[in-house]
């Protein structure tokens, strides 16, 4: 059995994640401030030289799927945190049902996006695949974001850190969905007579922590932690979407227009892709 104090872990996670989030916001402020002496602010926001793009407008379907994910993930995050930190009078029942509905929609949307990536006519899974050339560009991309370099290696539609982030999203969503299902300790699946908690946790975690109920408690802690990782990564995603390429971000949500004739939105400094192999 675990000897770690469940209470200590949970309270620690609360403060660590909240502190981390404050640090992330402070880093954003510093990063945005640093873009002024480095000339990026002037180039983008004053001269309007935003990054070029390899393809014109993104198709409508992934844009819609992204929007649906965005809304439902916000609903899941809000209701989830309101369940853990109750501040709405009247109890959690409604919040839980909203959370369940959003969960079903997100899982369906995720499967929809996987179908689009791997099985549709416009399958785009290669855009997210990290190649050797991407891996080699990692240091250069990291140097660009941390102002050690003023040019970003261009290898593909998404850079290696974007790809890594989007793959992390997919992985976290799958894990989060499984964790969420494992929390359903009351509803018995018809004809099977077992709960999701019993099926998903009863054979491995429950014996380790002293019962299914405690296994659910630990799984709830993991679910909560992944929620915070989502919050932090999404915040980073939003910050970089706004500061690195606001025109294409607006275009992705149906605002503004994409300058196809200019190959994007101007002429940001890019380096030639490295030779593969």
């Amino acid at each position, binding site marked *: 059995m675990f000897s770690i104090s469940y209470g200590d872990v949970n309270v620690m996670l609360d403060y660590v994640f909240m502190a981390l989030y404050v640090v992330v916001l402070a880093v954003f402020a510093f990063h945005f401030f640093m873009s002024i002496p480095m000339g990026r602010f002037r180039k983008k926001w004053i001269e309007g030289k935003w990054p070029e793009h390899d393809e014109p407008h993104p198709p409508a379907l992934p844009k819609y799927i992204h929007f649906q994910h965005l809304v439902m993930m916000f609903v899941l995050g809000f209701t989830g945190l309101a369940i853990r930190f*109750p501040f709405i009078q009247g109890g959690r029942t409604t919040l839980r049902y909203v959370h369940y509905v959003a969960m079903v929609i997100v899982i369906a949307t995720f499967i929809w996006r996987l179908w689009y990536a791997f099985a549709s006519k416009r399958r785009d899974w290669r855009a997210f695949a990290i190649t050797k050339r991407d891996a080699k560009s990692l240091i250069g991309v990291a140097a660009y974001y941390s102002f050690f370099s003023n040019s970003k290696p261009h290898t593909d539609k998404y850079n290696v850190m974007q790809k890594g982030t989007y793959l992390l999203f997919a992985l976290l969503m799958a894990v989060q969905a499984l964790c969420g299902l494992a929390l359903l300790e009351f509803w018995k699946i018809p004809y099977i007579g077992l709960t999701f908690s019993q099926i998903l946790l009863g054979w491995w975690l429950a014996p380790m922590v*002293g*019962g299914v109920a405690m296994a659910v*408690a630990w799984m709830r802690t993991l679910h909560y932690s992944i929620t915070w990782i989502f919050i932090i990564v999404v915040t980073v995603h939003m910050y970089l979407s706004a500061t690195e390429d606001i025109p294409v971000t607006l275009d992705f949500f149906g605002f503004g227009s994409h300058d196809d004739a200019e190959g994007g939105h101007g002429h940001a400094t890019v380096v030639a892709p490295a030779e593969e192999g």
Partner: protein
Amino acid sequence: MSPVRIERRVLVAGILLVVTIVVVALTTAVAGAEVKPVLTASTVSTATAAVTTITPSIAATAVPSGSGGYAMDFTLPTFGKSGCMVCHGDPNLVVSQGDATHSFWVDEVAYSHSAHATVVCTGCHTDYGYKAPHGQGGQDWRAVAKQSCKNCHPNEFRDWSLGAHAPVPTADKKPDPKAASKPLCGDCHGGHNMVVLKNNPAGQAEVRAQAQQMCGRQGCHADYWANYNDYYHGAAYKTGAADAPTCWTCHGTHTVLKSSDRFSPTNAANLGAANSCGTPGCHTDSAPGLAAYAPLIHGRATISAKNPVVRLLDFVLGRK
């Protein structure tokens, strides 16, 4: 018979009738004036007639005595409530003790909707029958009234007497020195407006929402009410979550025991039991492992205070 003689006889009869009416009216007016001060006060509580079954048979006369108390040279019928409500139906009925004023008003409307609507006053206030003045001479009327619950609820009284809320004689068989601070039935269940619980979900919900008033009030367990603040139990209960446990869901109802007592449902060894965390609707798959969660239920604030991030923040902000 001549018409003149008939008129005289009618005149005499009329005069007699008028005199009779005047005498009766005067008599009634005098009698009414005697009871008026009491009845006027009683009628302030308007809807009293709903439960009043027997009216006072003898007019009451309150005469202030010179000894600081008062004398009530009357006997009221106590079989029903009406006699008591002559005085206690008055919202202005208060007794001053030092700087404090205590209301002795009984809201008869609330009483008529309570679980004891059909119970007469002396059904609980057993030492009150035909006695006046009451509340004088060191009568512990509260204890009598509350302990009289056992007459109708012997099982609940027995359960209570086995718990930590019951006075326990000392080793040398002296009365419990803490007896005065231990609650009797009415301290938790209330008095004249006791809510109907049987087949009454609204009443059950009303009582369920009163954990602070019952258990967590000042003088009882205010500290435990304040630190009942973990994520999924206390914090949720305080925002009205119907599925979050109230005090007695975990600690029991009448036989409340300290958690250190091995028979307590909140004892670490019993947390997996069907009357503890394993209560149907709670954690049906619970096991002794749930003890790992227990310190958080009343200990989140303590754990937070010891958290290094919080301590660092306190140090940086100079809060401690």
